[in-house]
Every structure is written in C-alpha cells, then in structure tokens.
C-alpha cells in the first residue's frame, strides 16, 4: 500500500527499517544503513561507531529517523526516535537536531562562526562569508560558548554565502557573545 507520498513500495504512513546494505534493499530508492554511516563519515568525519546502537528508519519520502535500539519493522507510530537525515535528493541534508546532537564529533565541513555571525545565523539570516575555502554544500555551523565550540545548526554554503537553514521553529534572537 502506498499513500502516494513516497516512491512505489515506500508506504508514507509507516516507519520501515533501513536495509543493512544494497544487497538487502527491497524498496527502490531507499537508503541503506551502510550508506548512511558512510555519508556521516565522508561528509563530516563522524565515526560509524557513533551509531552502533541506533537503528535507522524511513517514513515518507526520504525522511530518515534514528532510534536508540531495536524494534520490529514496520512501526505504525507517530514517531520512532529522532529525524536525522533527508535523502532521495541530489544532496543529502542532515537535520538541525542531528547536527546539534552529533555535530561535536564532526572533523570536516565545520564552519566556526564569530559571535556576531553566530547570532545572525541562529536568527535565520543568510550572510556573505567569502573567506570559507572548504567544500560547498551543507556545513555544520559552530560557535564558541564558554570556551568550547558548540554546533548551532546546518548551514548551506554556496557562492561565498552561508545560508542559515535553521528551521523557523528553532530560530531565536540570541545574545551576541562578543559584546
């Protein structure tokens, strides 16, 4: 059964566990656990063992969730764990909440913002940042808080500009720690 939200075979009304590898994939276009682990490691340097105790699930079109344990699949529930990744598009996009939970483990594609930049980013503002010489695409934006770099959320870096993709519900006018 499909409600039309997902690709053929992907029932948008339920949570399906991701197959371990491509060889075990039954639903067309569905990401595998191996691909998800590889993506976090390749894009951000987050080690695969970070997710050793988590299972990954798809609900709807490419919305992936991580659950801290094991459950029978499928699950007809309103939520199974936490949203972590958006797949089934050219560039996979991590969620703000996943970046806030695991972003401190990232070693690549992390952009450290100044106090003023961090405040603007958290409020959802795009900003010109021509000094970034790393990859374009989705980055983890961090700032210094009480002596440690802390991930704020997901940025999209394109054409010398850092776009804040912090969802509206998470945008806040926060103190400028440089003042």
């Amino acid at each position, binding site marked *: 059964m499909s409600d039309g939200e997902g690709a053929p075979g992907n029932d948008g009304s339920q949570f399906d566990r991701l197959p371990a590898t491509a060889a075990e994939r039954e639903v067309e276009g569905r990401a595998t656990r191996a691909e998800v682990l590889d993506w976090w490691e390749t894009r951000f340097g987050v080690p695969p063992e970070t997710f050793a105790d988590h299972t990954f699930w798809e609900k709807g079109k490419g919305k992936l969730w991580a659950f801290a344990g094991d459950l029978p699949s499928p699950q007809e529930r309103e*939520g199974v764990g936490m949203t972590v990744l958006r797949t089934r598009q050219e560039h996979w996009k991590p*969620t703000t909440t996943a970046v806030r939970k695991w972003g401190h483990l990232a070693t690549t594609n992390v952009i450290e913002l100044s106090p003023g930049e961090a405040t603007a980013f958290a409020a959802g503002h795009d900003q010109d940042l021509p000094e970034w010489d790393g990859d374009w695409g989705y980055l983890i934006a961090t700032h210094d808080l*009480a*002596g440690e770099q802390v991930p704020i959320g997901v940025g999209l870096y394109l054409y010398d500009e850092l776009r804040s993709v912090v969802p509206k519900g998470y945008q806040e006018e926060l*103190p400028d720690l440089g003042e």
Partner: protein
Amino acid sequence: MNDDDGVLDRYVPLVDDEAAFRAACDRPLPSVVRVNTLAADAERVARAFDAEGTGYERADWHDGLFRMADRSPGTTWPYAHGWVHGQEEVSCLPAMALDPDPGSRVWDTCAAPGSKTTQLAALMDDSGVLVGNDTSLGRLSALRHNAERLGVTNLVVDQQDARNYSLNGFGFDEFDATLVDAPCSCEGTVRKNPDTLEKWTLDHVHEVAGIQKGILRRAVQATRPGGTVVYSTCTFAPEENEAVLDHVLREEDCEVVDWDCPLESVPGVTEWEGESYDEQVTRATRVYPHHNDTGGFFLAKLEVGGTPDDAAGGDAEVGA
C-alpha cells in the same frame, strides 16, 4: 469570596496553614528550566548563562534546576542548544520517583507536551524503549518537537487511548515502569494559569476521575510484576488523587510504596467528604504551593504485584 471563585475553600480543612496556602496561590511562579543531561551538565549550563549574562538562581534541592531572573529562557544560548527545558520545579518529581533504569522499557501514558517524557529519557540515558503516548495529534506534535529539540532518540511517539492501550507491534508485551501523569482539573497550576479555577466544576472533577481510574488500571496491567507505576496530578482534589488510588488498589494487583520526596510535603488523606480510603494512600505525597513556593502536586508510587510469567517472556525476541 476569593479570586479563585471559592474553589480553594474546599481544601482549607486539608492544609496546615490557610493564610500561607492562599498567599502562595496568589503569587506568580518563577520561570524555571531543567538541565537536559543528554546534552550538557549543570556546570556547563551555568558557565554558558554566565558568559551571556543571563541571571539565575540554582534550586537547592536539585542540581539541574535554574530559576531564571529576568529573560524568557527561550532567548538564551543554552536553550537554543537544547541544554535546558522549561519545566516547573514540582513537575520534576514524577520522573524522579519512577527512576527508570537505562535500557529498560518505559511507558509514559499521557506524555505530551513532554517535559516529564524528556526527563525520563535523560534518566534512561537515551537507551531502552520509552513510549510517549497521548490522544491528541496536536499535543503529540509538541511532544515530538520537544523530544527532538533535546536530542532524545529512545522515544517512540504513539497515539492511543491509554485506557485500552495495546502493545501490538513492539515485540514485547509489558513495560518495566509506567508513568501516569494524568489529565486533571489542574488546580495546582493556579499560580501559572490564574484562570484555571474560573472554569472549575465539580462535574469536571468527577469526569476526569473516571478517566484517571481507567488509565491507572491499564498502566498496572501493562507493567510487569515487580515493576513500578507512578501516578501524579497537579490537583488538590482527593476525588482525583486518593480516590483514584483507592479504586485501583481494589481492582488491580498492586500496592502503594514509600518513596523519599526531596521537597517538603504531607501524606495523602484517608478521609474526604464522607468517603474513606485505603490506609496505603498515606504513602502518597501531597505538595502544597506554600511548602516550597512551587505549584501544587500529588504523587504516588506503586509496585505491581503478581509473579513473573516466564512463559510470556519479559525479554521476548524482537524481529530484525
């Protein structure tokens, strides 16, 4: 006649200091946040509040509670990072009483919007299976948002009527611990929502008491022998508190057990308006607003009776 339309008059015979009780109910509550230990510890939160100049006072009875001096906590960096969550002090008691083990199976019967659910997740160290159930899709969306904001990954969000909750599909058939933070007449929240008592009716008290009895009975049934059920409300009404316990003690195999309340409190009452209740309800806890300058609260910890049924297999294999 008081500002509360006389509702609080009925509880005067129960309180030790009427003047202090009424005065406390008239004062607004401070804004309080609880540290989300899945993301940061209390010292890190304190350092961050200090760095941005946010004023606070630490609660002396709980390391992870900060009373905010001025600003709304939503406009602070620790809040934006999911290190803290707005939660009234007294509402931290149920999860502390349930005290779930990491890796265990826990059911939060009336979970939305999720302050206590996310506190349970933190006590479980984000491991095991935490089922957060509620009947309203709108409230469930608030629960999901709060759980995501705080980085909870061991939560299954479910929409069922808790009174006949089904565990179908989980691969196990009983919980280790269950929280019934029941829908109630909310008299204890008058300091936060002064209009609560304007809408108060005795009919509503009796109506929610019926729902509370149904949910608590199902909670005991769905929890393994030897497991723990915590029942809590934010109301003073014995009809919704001791009477509900009295009912479930008669109908299900369980007992009220002692627990060590970290706040000043008094025992549950065995007599109310011509009714008398099982002696065990004196092991329940009543917290009045003037005791600790908080909201009002009721809480009881129950142990489920019976013997483990090995055939049912509390550790049933789950599918791949």
